[in-house]
């Protein structure tokens, strides 16, 4: 291979246009004389929104990480826990479950008619924290567990031989492994909570519990004040860039893909009981909202909701958005990775990682910020609502790209490193190579990437809330409308329908595209 593939550059150009043009439009609006004046920047409202955004993200991330440390440690120490691999897969569910569905689950448990009613206090900081911890604690467990798995078994044996107690083991083994990854993981969770939209929109209680993300939406859709939206979007972007810069200072994140089996450690009888208690409590916390929601869905409204043609139209639209965004994202990811892995093969590893990093850089730009930029850019020229579907597909495809790069990248790199020379030596043409080598080896990763992006796009509420109209309603938007109108029984049915729909599409795409497990030796 003398020349690396150029396809990745085209992806980067399209990406730059799709992200930078809306950002540029925000910046130019931000500099225009029309933009909200000094009064807005000094206003109590902005201070309150900014404070609440940071405070709820700080608390959510702190709680999620603290609990995840306990749970991941229990999983790491209790390698023989019954159904361990099944439970760890359950902890992967929140990655696929739409956030609005999780909100419904939280309402089913902690709502006025729930199993543990919190009454009105659910709406506000309490509810937001519960939903964020439900979402992010399992993710943090999956990110933290590989850190424990990275401790060589010999170190555990050595520590036992030296007679180290639990505290000394924690201090000399576990903490040493964790301290490199913990800041990066914490900042990632902080960022996810800072940019969380659906949870705050539905569980936030008025101006006192509004974040920047929701304030942007309210400025555009309720206050019809694009200038205020621009100011808020720029502020949100600045915060995200600051957090991303902070993350980049720390050690890189471990892979979410974890080994589901583990060697049990000798933790003693008390330790085993403690671990069992922690894991059981965590499983109840994560599983209960989903179970409660499913039970709640079997109510008198079930037939009315399911026989409503609007539900099926929304399901069709949701599917269209999910599949289109996933196809675009995986295609773009494949082309991008073709270029980066070619550079890696030629020994230009820095160039390769820069290309992959540029493909993932959209991760720090909240979709609502891109959406706002496009809204502000297009609104004077066209009816933006008529372009809702392509815009929603495009933004969701862009937001899915970092996941594709992260999921498909390692497999593609490995395949190229192992077989590039062999394929060249065997004189395989590009098509022969794709058909005989690349596709069979990579389809599993392609299947997982497609399924992940499709599920995320199908569950998205942010961009569609901005661009949706009474005619263009996806399932998450329909669910949000039902929750806002306190049609809780209807919402429960829609939520379970959406959950089942997302999981089915995820499972189908993963199986259909992924095929059988790859052979390895």
């Amino acid at each position, binding site marked *: 291979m003398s020349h690396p593939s150029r396809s990745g550059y085209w992806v980067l150009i399209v990406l730059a246009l799709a992200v930078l043009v809306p950002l540029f439009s925000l910046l130019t609006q931000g500099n225009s004389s029309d933009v909200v004046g000094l009064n807005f920047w000094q206003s109590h409202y902005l201070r309150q929104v900014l404070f609440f955004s940071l405070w709820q993200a700080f608390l959510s991330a702190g709680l999620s990480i603290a609990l995840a440390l306990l749970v991941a440690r229990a999983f790491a120490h209790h390698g023989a826990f019954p159904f361990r691999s099944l439970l760890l897969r359950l902890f992967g569910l929140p990655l696929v479950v739409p956030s609005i569905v999780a909100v419904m689950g939280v309402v089913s448990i902690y709502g006025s008619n729930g199993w543990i009613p919190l009454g009105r206090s659910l709406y506000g900081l309490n509810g937001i924290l519960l939903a964020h911890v439900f979402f992010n604690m399992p993710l943090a467990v999956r990110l933290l567990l590989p850190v424990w798995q990275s401790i060589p078994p010999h170190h555990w044996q050595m520590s036992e031989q030296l007679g180290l107690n639990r505290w000394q083991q924690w201090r000399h083994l576990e903490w040493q492994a964790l301290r490199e990854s913990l800041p990066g993981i914490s900042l990632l969770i902080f960022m996810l909570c800072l940019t969380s939209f659906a949870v705050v929109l539905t569980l936030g209680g008025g101006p006192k519990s509004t974040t920047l993300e929701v304030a942007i939406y309210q400025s555009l859709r309720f206050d019809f004040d694009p200038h205020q939206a621009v100011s808020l979007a720029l502020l949100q972007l600045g915060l995200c860039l600051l957090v991303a810069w902070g993350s980049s200072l720390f050690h890189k994140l471990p892979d979410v893909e974890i080994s589901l089996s583990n060697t049990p450690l000798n933790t003693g009888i008390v330790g085993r009981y403690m671990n069992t208690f922690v894991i059981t409590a965590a499983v109840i916390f994560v599983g209960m909202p989903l179970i409660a929601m499913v039970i709640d869905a079997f109510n008198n409204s079930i037939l009315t909701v399911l026989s409503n043609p609007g539900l099926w139209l929304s399901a069709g639209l949701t599917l269209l958005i999910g599949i289109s965004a996933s196809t675009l994202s995986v295609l773009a990811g494949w082309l991008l990775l073709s270029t980066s892995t070619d550079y890696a093969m030629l020994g230009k590893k820095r160039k390769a990682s820069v290309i992959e990093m540029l493909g993932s850089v959209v991760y720090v730009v909240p979709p609502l910020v891109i959406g706002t930029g496009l809204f502000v850019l297009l609104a004077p020229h066209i009816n933006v609502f008529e372009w809702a579907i392509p815009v929603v597909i495009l933004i969701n495809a862009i937001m899915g790209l970092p996941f594709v790069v992260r999921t498909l990248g390692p497999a593609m790199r490995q395949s190229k490193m192992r077989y590039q020379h062999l394929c*060249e030596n065997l004189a395989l043409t590009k098509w*022969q190579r794709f058909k005989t080598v690349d596709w069979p080896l990579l389809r599993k990763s392609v299947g997982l990437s497609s399924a992940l992006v499709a599920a995320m796009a199908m569950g998205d509420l942010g961009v569609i809330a901005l661009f949706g109209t009474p005619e263009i309603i996806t399932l998450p938007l329909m669910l949000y409308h039902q929750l806002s109108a306190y049609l809780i029984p209807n919402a429960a049915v829609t939520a379970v329908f959406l959950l089942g729909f997302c999981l089915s599409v995820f499972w189908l795409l993963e199986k259909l595209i992924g095929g059988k497990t790859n*052979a390895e030796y």
Partner: protein
Amino acid sequence: MLSIEGLEFCYGATDANSSFPMCFDLTVNAGEILSLIGPSGSGKSTLLKLIAGFNAASKGCIKINGQQIQLLSPAKRPVTMVFQEHNLFPHLDVYTNVALGMNPSLQLTVQQNRAVDDALENLGLAGMQKRSPGSLSGGQRQRVALARALVRKHAILLLDEAFAALGPAQREEMIALVKTMVEDQNMCALLVSHQPTDALLASKRTAFVHHGQIFKIDETEKLLNRSDLTEINKYLGA
């Protein structure tokens, strides 16, 4: 015959590999196996990659039976390379892995199908057509790779530490197979190995590669017993 004249190459400064300039001159006769020994990073594998076309030389020429090939793409060079590992595609069975060498489109004629079967039989793999690489031993996998080399009928065979992962008995057996193949097909073979015993078994002549050059080329036994050359003694630990 393979002849290499003034073949120059240098890795980029940022590359993890050595960045000293390399220059090779070498001739290998038809039907001969030439062993390449030398310290790690001395340029043995780089030389094979230059011949196969995976690395592009900055100067010099590579001739096979008088024809220059250094400007050809790897696919067009009459060269088969066997690596230390990952010679087989794990998702394809033994038969398909060998058939790929015959025709990458996998649309084989009756004669070609028979040739694949014959090659497998010659290498002691009869009846293993449907087996997956994952179910084979390390030695069997390398035999499959050799079977593919056999059906390709290319003039040059490059073995890049191809038997390094095998035990002594298996290595001996594989070398015997390669010798038969090379003689039967009148190939030129280059064998990179870290084991002087491999060179003794496989080659009449051996080249000692040092710091990006063919430092010394001689009859294998003589070369391995040269007590006057400190570089070779250092490498052999004598």
